[in-house]
């Protein structure tokens, strides 16, 4: 087992850095650079600048200061015993990335890339966004550092995440709804790449996840690994032991890589990624890329992806805009193939059940993305039993999802509807309440609060 020093965000971007990727960005057969030649110079420039920056004391000090004073790191660990009662009695610890400034883990990466943008002398940043969290984080960092900012967002997502569109515009960013293809995250990435290849002289692409061409998967991992570095030390300090399993939702996979990386050398710790199962894998309407996909090339890297026999990307489906992506980071593809991490699918219904449960039992409204990890904890806890210690990355908060959740639970339609399980043991499952709520409320009968 390796040891980790106490949390010092940004003090060193790579304590025990994994031996992957190789110098050209390959994680086994995955990763690499599948982009037009026109972008290679910019990617080389980014790679070189990042390599110089990540060991530069002045940068590290500035990055650490921002993480502490602006983001509010380190984020706390919260134990959620009442939620855990539904997880086979296993103990559940949440890593509270939802408490970061801007409301998710996305700010960790964006501050690093915004500093890098200034270092290479560019004045404009572009970003893609699905749920809007990365867009909000990028708009925030751009406002802070005086960069102009354009965010590409699928038109479909601008509708389901209208709050975040307003936040980005308040922060001074231009939000461009993307109307091509499936009008979601994948198409926003295509448009951002088209912008970048046209404006690369002045513009840096602040990529939001651990996907895309080298160096993005490696660089974003390094900026996000603070989550796991902190959490590992925090769990060791309070429990005197490592968790049995670390769980995180996986869309592109940045919050999962962020919390996994510190634990990769700890062979006894299971790493479990929860993908968006949408309506269920058997329906074909899902975003479970590793669980239900095959290796191929999308958005600049080889990874698992959802594709048809012609190599066309299949449109993904998820209630969660942030997980609604038919690709996944190459490092997750690699961790899957070498057997170091396992990936499972959580359906919309399972995620919303866990969403409601955390709201009512612990007073925490999670992002629907993070609710997939919570749903995974409910299952894994049942499998591992009462002595198990689970660490779950609560990657974001659910303010942006209130409208989606209200619609899911039918809260707008009538008064006094039970949106799901609560602590009140007197409460009976309401006729017509959501199926998810019924299932959990049933288990709760006879328990005392």
């Amino acid at each position, binding site marked *: 087992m390796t040891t980790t020093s106490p949390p010092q965000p940004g003090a060193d971007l790579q304590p025990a850095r994994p031996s992957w990727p190789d110098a050209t960005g390959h994680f086994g057969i995955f990763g690499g650079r599948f982009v*037009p030649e026109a972008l290679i110079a910019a990617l080389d420039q980014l790679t070189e600048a990042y390599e110089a920056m990540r060991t530069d004391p002045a940068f590290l000090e500035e990055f650490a200061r921002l993480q502490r004073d602006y983001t509010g790191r380190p984020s706390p660990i919260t134990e959620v015993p009442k939620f855990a009662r539904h997880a086979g009695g296993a103990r559940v610890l949440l890593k509270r990335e939802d408490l970061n400034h801007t409301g998710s883990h996305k700010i960790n990466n964006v501050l690093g890339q915004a500093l890098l943008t200034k270092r290479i002398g560019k004045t404009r940043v572009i970003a893609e966004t699905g749920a809007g969290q990365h867009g909000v984080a990028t708009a925030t960092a751009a406002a802070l550092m005086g960069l102009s900012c354009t965010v590409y967002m699928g038109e479909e997502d601008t509708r389901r995440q209208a709050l975040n569109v307003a936040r980005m515009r308040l922060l001074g960013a231009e939000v461009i709804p993307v109307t091509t293809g499936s009008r979601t995250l994948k198409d926003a990435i295509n448009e951002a790449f088209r912008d970048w290849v046209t404006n690369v002289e002045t513009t840096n692409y602040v990529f939001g996840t651990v996907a895309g061409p080298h160096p993005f998967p490696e660089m974003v991992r390094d900026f996000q690994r603070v989550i796991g570095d902190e959490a590992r030390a925090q769990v060791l300090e309070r429990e005197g032991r490592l968790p049995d399993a670390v769980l995180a939702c996986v869309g592109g996979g940045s919050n999962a890589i962020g919390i996994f990386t510190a634990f990769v050398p700890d062979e006894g710790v299971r790493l479990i990624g929860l993908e968006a199962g949408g309506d269920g894998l058997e329906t074909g309407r899902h975003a479970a890329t590793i669980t239900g996909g095959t290796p191929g090339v999308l958005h600049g890297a080889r990874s698992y992806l959802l594709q048809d026999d012609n190599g*066309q990307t299949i449109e993904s489906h998820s209630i969660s805009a942030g997980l609604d992506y038919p690709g996944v980071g190459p490092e997750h593809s690699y961790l899957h193939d070498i057997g170091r991490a396992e990936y499972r699918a959580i359906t919309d219904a399972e995620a919303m059940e866990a969403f409601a449960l955390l709201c009512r039992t612990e007073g925490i409204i999670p992002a629907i993305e993070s609710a997939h990890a919570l749903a995974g904890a409910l299952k894994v806890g049942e499998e591992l039993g009462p002595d198990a210690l689970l660490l779950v990355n609560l990657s974001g908060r659910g303010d942006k999802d209130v409208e989606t959740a209200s619609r899911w639970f039918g809260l707008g339609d009538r008064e006094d509807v039970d949106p799901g399980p609560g602590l009140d043991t007197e409460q009976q499952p309401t006729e017509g309440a959501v199926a998810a709520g019924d299932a959990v409320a049933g288990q709760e009968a006879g328990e005392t609060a």
Partner: protein
Amino acid sequence: MSSKLADRIAAAKAEGRAALIAYLPVGYPTVEGSIAAMVAAVEGGADIVEVGVPYSDPGMDGPVIQQAVDVAVRAGVGMRDALRAVEAVAAAGAVPVVMSYWNPIERYGVERFAGDLAAAGGAGAITPDLIPDEAGAWLAAAERADLDRVFLVAPSSTDARLVSTTAACRGFVYAASTMGVTGTRATVSDAAEKLVARTRAAAPDLAVCVGLGVSNGDQAAEVAAFADGVIVGSAFVRCVLDAEDEAAGAAATRRLAGELAAGVRRHESAPA
């Protein structure tokens, strides 16, 4: 072991002119309609036809090509249709070369693609999102099947990359004249001539063809003055998009090819 693309470009050069290369995507408006348009481009004077394989995420293409390709993707058009178009172009007397983003080729199977493309009479493939650094499997398969492989260079390419990229090419090198996506432009960028000169310095024996932004006879003449080949894409696609029916699309394609073919001949020099 000879390159069909290099031979055709050399033949044009022997006439004292640049070669005309037309791009059209398979499957817009239909597979048959797209093949008819490709044949019309050959009848109008195209020396080489880039047979575009539809792809769901064409990151290097502007709105015109996206619009056409989206229809083909939704109709389920794939590599088999592209190979049929390759046969038709060869039968019409031009040199067919496949233009495809990498994933459709990888999904079809690199070896299988190379074998089937050679059997269909194709010269090789242009791969806009595959750089030689990632092309090991393709280079090996192309070598075995005696196919051309065309990679791209851009104004942002360093001299070192011009050397390494052109060294991996056979047939010609595709000089992307501007930093940006495909689409017609009012003027041909100054960067094009400079890029061609830098590329020639890196690879004196390789033909350099220029694409991105050429849409009419005047621009073709301008580019033909300094490049070995003139590549026209979006303007051809526009002919098909704007046409009332497939016959009108083919007729417009034939007319444009004729105008461009005249353009590349405008400043005919003494045969090289």
